[in-house]
């Protein structure tokens, strides 16, 4: 079942492409934490990639931290292997940790089904927004609702985001 609004962040410990290990606990003190299910091969991820990078850069100084997680089975999608993740992070200069969920247990624990799929937690690490980055993967200039950015602004202002839930639009997670 997918994590519901106000539920606590689900703990994990995953390797990042930078050789370090990351967990939500290591981000205690952040004003907000976004766990985002991600991958290399998905065209929806590619379409949103620059926007998500820009969001992390825009909000880093305000204590917001993103953790991107790839849970896809690289046996089926070799572009999503750990080595390819390292290449992608380097090429794009990812300003966030990019983690590999090889067992897929983290995706199952969150109830994630798509890439990209955003789970935004407040400073108490409780879920305040879940869903898509915005309402238009195809045309950034035509975006009407910047769900993720608006949710970040809300949580930083101590308000509950509206909406708290949108449909994640993207590729399905590739299960083993």
């Amino acid at each position, binding site marked *: 079942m997918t994590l519901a609004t106000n539920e606590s962040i689900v703990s994990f410990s995953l390797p990042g492409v930078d050789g370090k290990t990351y967990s939500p606990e290591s981000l205690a003190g952040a004003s907000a934490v976004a766990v985002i299910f991600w991958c290399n*091969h*998905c*065209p*929806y991820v*590619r*379409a949103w*990639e620059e926007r998500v990078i820009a969001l992390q850069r825009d909000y880093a100084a305000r204590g917001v931290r993103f953790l991107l997680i790839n849970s896809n089975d690289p046996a*089926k*999608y070799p*572009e999503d292997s750990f080595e390819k993740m390292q290449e992608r992070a380097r090429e794009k200069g990812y300003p966030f940790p990019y983690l590999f969920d090889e067992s897929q247990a983290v995706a199952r624990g969150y109830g994630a089904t798509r890439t990209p799929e955003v789970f935004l937690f407040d400073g108490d690490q409780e879920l305040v927004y879940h869903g898509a980055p915005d309402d238009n*993967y*195809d045309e950034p200039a035509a975006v009407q609702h910047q769900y993720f950015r608006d949710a970040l602004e809300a949580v930083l202002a101590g308000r509950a985001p509206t909406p708290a839930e949108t449909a994640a*639009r*993207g*590729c*399905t997670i590739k299960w083993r």
Partner: protein
Amino acid sequence: MRIDFLYWEECPSHEEALDRLRSGLAEAGMRDEITVTHVATEAQARALAFPGSPTIRLDGRDIQPETAAEGAGRLTCRLYLLEDGRPSPLPSREMIRRRLAEQAVAQATKGATR
């Protein structure tokens, strides 16, 4: 002209892509039928050399052959490169319009030389 539209239902852009194809045909005044194929299994994807959803073929030719080879023959979502270089899960309206016009000319030329 034979027009094939192939999709895998796990990729949400297919309905919009089919709408764009229908609009492109209407704008060009073309009444050719679209053969819609739901690619549902890996075996079917391999048999069709399916490069991902959505895919449009005009007389058997992909509307963006330069991106069609990536991952061909498996169930996946398709990455298109738009005119401005942006990646997208959707072919642009302009891309569809241009390919329809080019294929119509190719077809007319072929008919005239027979």
